[in-house]
């Protein structure tokens, strides 16, 4: 019980910390923010339930007024922008990602990558696109068009999340709860 609480809180802190570190570089020198990778890792490392709770805790703190989103943003206003769909999708993404890693017992690196792809990209973008279409008063296809530029970067993030998860399982085997 204490361990669950500690892991959930620490991973919420990890997501926040990833927003404070300046942009990373991906494989081809493209700069990105790593916060969404933190969401994927919550799912792949902690599993569906704990991962989702960690992300919810993070969002709760953002709503309460802490500047934990990348760029020092936060507060209730963060939920009043066109990207709100993505925020709402974060915990769902973590849950789906965690579910896949828990249920699909193949090699961790690939499973985690695929799980991050399904949860952190497909599911997340579904929420994000719907949110954007509502806030910008556009049709779904139009909103989808607006976000296509970000998809390749997030696909790479999903693959990296797989590698990171596999690495963590090797160095901290008892801590990767998704494969209990």
């Amino acid at each position, binding site marked *: *019980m*204490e*361990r669950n*609480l*500690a*892991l*959930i*809180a*620490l*991973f*919420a*802190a*990890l997501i*926040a*910390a*990833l927003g*404070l*570190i*300046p*942009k*990373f*570089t*991906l494989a081809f*020198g493209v*700069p990105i923010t*790593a916060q969404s*990778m933190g969401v994927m*890792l919550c799912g792949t*490392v902690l599993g569906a339930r704990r991962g989702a709770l960690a992300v919810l*805790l*993070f969002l*709760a*703190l953002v*709503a*309460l*007024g*802490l*500047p*934990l989103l990348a*760029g020092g*943003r*936060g*507060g*209730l*206003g963060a*939920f*009043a*922008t*066109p990207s709100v769909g993505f925020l709402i999708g974060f915990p769902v993404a973590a849950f789906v990602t965690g579910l896949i890693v828990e249920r699909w017992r193949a090699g961790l690196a690939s499973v985690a990558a695929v799980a991050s792809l399904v949860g952190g990209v497909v599911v997340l973008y579904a929420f994000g696109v719907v949110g954007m279409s509502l*806030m*910008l*008063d556009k049709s779904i296809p139009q909103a989808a068009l*607006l976000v296509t530029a970000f998809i390749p970067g997030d696909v790479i993030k999903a693959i*990296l999340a797989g590698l*990171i998860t596999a*690495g*963590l399982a090797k*160095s*901290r085997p008892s*801590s990767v709860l998704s494969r209990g």
Partner: protein
Amino acid sequence: MISLTSPVETWAHRVPAGVKLAALSVTTVGLLALQSPGALALALAGVVGLTLTGGPSFARAAVHALKILLPFLLLIAVWHGVTGQIEAGMTVALRLLAALALANFVTMTTRLSDMVAVAAVLLAPLRRLGLSTRALELSVALVVRFTPSIARKGGLLAEAWRARSARRTGWQIIMPLAATALDDADHVAEALRARGGLETTEPTD
């Protein structure tokens, strides 16, 4: 960890958080219902007036928070300019600005502790599902306590990267960072158990 509450004391700081949040919810729903640019422009003017009651430095900080909408406003301007739907474009833009400015006003005039209190009240029904408010308070304290230290370690790892590479920091440093989160979690769990487990009253901070 600094919250987004404005250090400038305004009349709104004294209004109970619950009241502000309820008013915000009602007003935001109202904003979504409005369709004409004229009505929304009035609503925005109202929010601007509200913000100005906080004084010049308060208002400046509020404007700064609106900058996040700039890329979207630009997008709307281009999209609707090209398709000729100026009125629809204005409706969307004004609604976004008004909603964001109002939500931000509540954040800037409400202390973190008051927000936590409201959250505790709202989540009280969930106690049946096994969620104790102490666990929540403890979780919040833990996140506030550990975010700076993990971020600091991230900075140090980034420095260690740049001491050996001319390129921008690579994704590989996320792994030792996540490993640290796992280690810290183990230590925290141990510390909690050493103090009698989750039934204790005070957070570890």
